[in-house]
């Protein structure tokens, strides 16, 4: 089977030097494979390490052990060993991440925030702005807000800006962390539509969905993330 | 006139003259570059032309004929004193005629009469450093010269145009010599700057207090700094000389009474008198 992303023996632990060097293992031996067009939902109790796994896949956390293999521009790359410049390129071209919260950049208008990753990939400015506008409209964010920085928006509005930014570039691999958390049912339906469309276009999607209704609609399968017990 | 006894020819001893000539040779070899020299105490105060006198004393010979001008005039105190000084300590002939002089020592002017090959023009220089008002650190100005780093001088011209609409430097207008060194032309009017360019005469500059010598060899390129869209323009009073009628020469304004009356006359007395004499002869 062809895959878009695959982990081999992925492990992650934290060492808290400020707390006397406490060692906290979170992930161990994770073997996850996701195919293009497939949506995998991470399952497991709170604190099991679902978010940690997502952050490792995005390179936000360094992998402690094992490999994170990604198909990037026709080649295979191990994100656990990628240097910062390769990681930036991977994030620009191949892997997108929609977190629960929008990291607001002061004074930058919403439309620019959404268009920015497309521009970084070399899309023409007009085309990028047009797609940004269309996505924001689809997510029911009124045009009057597109020119404003999202700092003063509500949580739901910021979440939709975040979703538009994440879906706009059509990444081959998309990581979604609670994408519908602060959305009403109408907008939840829009997000489900976006995810289904991305799957049809061949994106491999890995998500954390506490909303079981959404999860059951879009996930092809569940991947269980088990809490790691520290060796006694 | 015979030389006064008890002095070496030209007042300075031969070792000092040799030291100054070495500085002059270096200055001629590097046009526009300031060469330090061991400036001597002279029998007149700094600011009265001690640098120019030492240069003149080092290059003058018994066959030379000396002219000295101050603001273009041969008959001012400074000019008369220096001329007499060399008549006494070198016994050389003196003249007020630009065309007849082999050495012309000057303060604040270049003669109107075109100079020729073989003549030497010696400038008295109060402040040789053209950057000194812009950059107070001497070491830094030296570095700027070494690196031909003259953007700051253009900033000064830019500021003038931004403030006044034109470059507001009427005298001591900075020049680039031979495309390399920024040079102070001494406090001559900007009107005289073009005369320095490719001049057939040798131009020597002496600053006694600042202990610097520099030079512009014959036929050297001397460009006044400017902008393409604000080209350098030599300025003179819009009038004719009240005595000789010249509309080409640099004019001095002379106040004639307490009621605001004034006339303009040539600053170059030899040039003016020569024109008047020719006009009288023609009548």
């Amino acid at each position: 089977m062809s895959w878009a992303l695959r982990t081999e023996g992925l492990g992650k632990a934290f060492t808290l030097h400020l707390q006397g060097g406490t060692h906290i293992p979170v992930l161990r031996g994770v073997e996850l494979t996701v195919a293009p067009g497939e949506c995998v939902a991470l399952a497991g109790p709170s604190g099991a390490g679902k978010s940690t796994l997502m952050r490792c896949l995005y390179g936000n956390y360094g992998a402690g052990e094992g490999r994170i293999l990604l198909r990037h521009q026709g080649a295979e790359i191990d994100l656990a060993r990628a240097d910062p410049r390769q990681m930036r390129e991977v994030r620009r071209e191949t892997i997108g991440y929609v977190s629960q919260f929008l990291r607001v950049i002061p004074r930058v208008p919403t439309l620019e925030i959404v268009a920015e990753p497309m521009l970084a990939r070399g899309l023409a400015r007009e085309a990028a702005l047009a797609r940004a506008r269309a996505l924001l409209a689809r997510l029911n964010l009124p045009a009057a807000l597109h020119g404003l920085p999202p700092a003063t928006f509500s949580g739901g509005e910021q979440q939709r800006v975040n979703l538009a930014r994440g879906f706009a570039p059509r990444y081959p691999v998309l990581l979604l962390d609670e994408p519908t958390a602060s959305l009403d049912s109408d907008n939840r339906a829009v997000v489900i539509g976006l995810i289904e469309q991305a799957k049809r276009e061949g994106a491999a999607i890995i998500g954390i969905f506490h909303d079981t209704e959404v999860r059951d609609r879009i996930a092809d399968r569940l991947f269980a993330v088990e809490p790691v017990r520290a060796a006694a | 006139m015979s030389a006064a006894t008890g002095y070496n020819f030209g007042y300075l001893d031969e070792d000092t003259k040799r030291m100054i000539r070495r500085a002059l040779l270096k200055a001629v070899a590097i046009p526009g570059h300031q060469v330090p020299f061991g400036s001597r105490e002279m029998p007149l105060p700094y600011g009265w032309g001690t640098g120019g006198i030492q240069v003149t004393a080092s290059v003058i010979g018994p066959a030379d004929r000396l002219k000295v001008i101050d603001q273009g005039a041969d008959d001012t105190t400074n000019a008369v004193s220096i001329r007499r000084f060399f008549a006494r300590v070198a016994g050389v002939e003196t003249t007020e005629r630009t065309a007849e002089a082999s050495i012309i020592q000057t303060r604040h002017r270049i003669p109107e009469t075109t100079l020729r090959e073989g003549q030497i023009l010696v400038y008295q220089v109060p402040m040789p450093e053209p950057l000194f008002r812009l950059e107070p650190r001497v070491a830094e100005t030296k570095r700027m010269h070494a690196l031909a780093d003259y953007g700051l001088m253009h900033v000064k011209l830019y500021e003038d145009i931004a403030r006044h609409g034109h470059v507001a430097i009427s005298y001591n207008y900075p020049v680039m010599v031979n495309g390399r060194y920024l040079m102070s032309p001494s406090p001559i009017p900007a009107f005289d700057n073009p005369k320095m360019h490719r001049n057939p005469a040798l131009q020597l500059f002496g600053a006694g207090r600042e202990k610097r010598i520099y030079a512009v060899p014959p036929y050297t390129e001397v460009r006044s700094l400017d902008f393409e869209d604000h080209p350098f323009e030599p300025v003179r009073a819009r009038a004719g000389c009240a005595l000789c009628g010249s509309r080409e020469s640099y004019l001095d304004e002379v106040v004639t009474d307490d009621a605001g009356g004034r006339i303009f006359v040539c600053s170059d007395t030899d040039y003016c008198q020569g024109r008047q004499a020719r006009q009288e002869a023609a009548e």
Partner: protein
Amino acid sequence: MSASPMEAPLLEAPLLEASDLALRYGAVPALDGVSLAIWPGEVVAIVGESGSGKTTLLRVLSGLLPPDAGSVLYRDPEGRAQRLEAMGEAALRRLHRTDWGFVHQNPRDGLRLGVSAGGNIGERLMATGARHYGSIREAAIAWLRRVEIDPARIDALPRTFSGGMQQRLQIARTLVTHPRLIFMDEPTGGLDVSVQARLLDLIRALVADLGLAVLLVTHDIAAARLLAHRILVMRHGKVVEEGLTDRVLDDPQHAYTQLLVASVLAA
């Protein structure tokens, strides 16, 4: 897939490469085996407490201070590599006003306070041979707009400007010759928080628009997070941790980095 030979040397090589830099102030090691490379279009932040060697590193990398050991390699726009220590003073000066820029913490060190805003911006142009007053002025006006200073202030002296405006003017003055690499030493230090935010945003936008490489020294972790692609954490003259900005800040490995991150007040 092969890159075209024309582009290869430009895209595939760092602008600046330092290896094994060492420098001592008496018994105190200010730099102790520091190596780093900065690539075109990359923003690298150097963070650490006062006295950790950040500013010394910036001065060594920009050729203002010779190291006791180690070398710095600069690559010019034609792709030729040159050792900084072998470069003459004239070449280094030219570099500092063409392909490089330096933004000082204190605008007094980077501006001529007695020269108008327009003259300040125009200086680098004039120093590199611009001799058309009208074009210099046009460039100055365009850059004033770009750094959000009213072009009507073009003939005003910077000493009549606020601290934030002075800093923006310093940036305009530096960027006017389109350098590829900018050194910034605490550019937001000494400014009010609201003014800092505006300046950071301006720098962020300019860096993105112009594709600048920036080496930024700061002790402001939030500024580093906003601007930098990559972070180096310095302590006692050593780089103790480096990597992707968000990884270093969100998953710090070294004890000192953990302390640094834990000490930041969340906004």
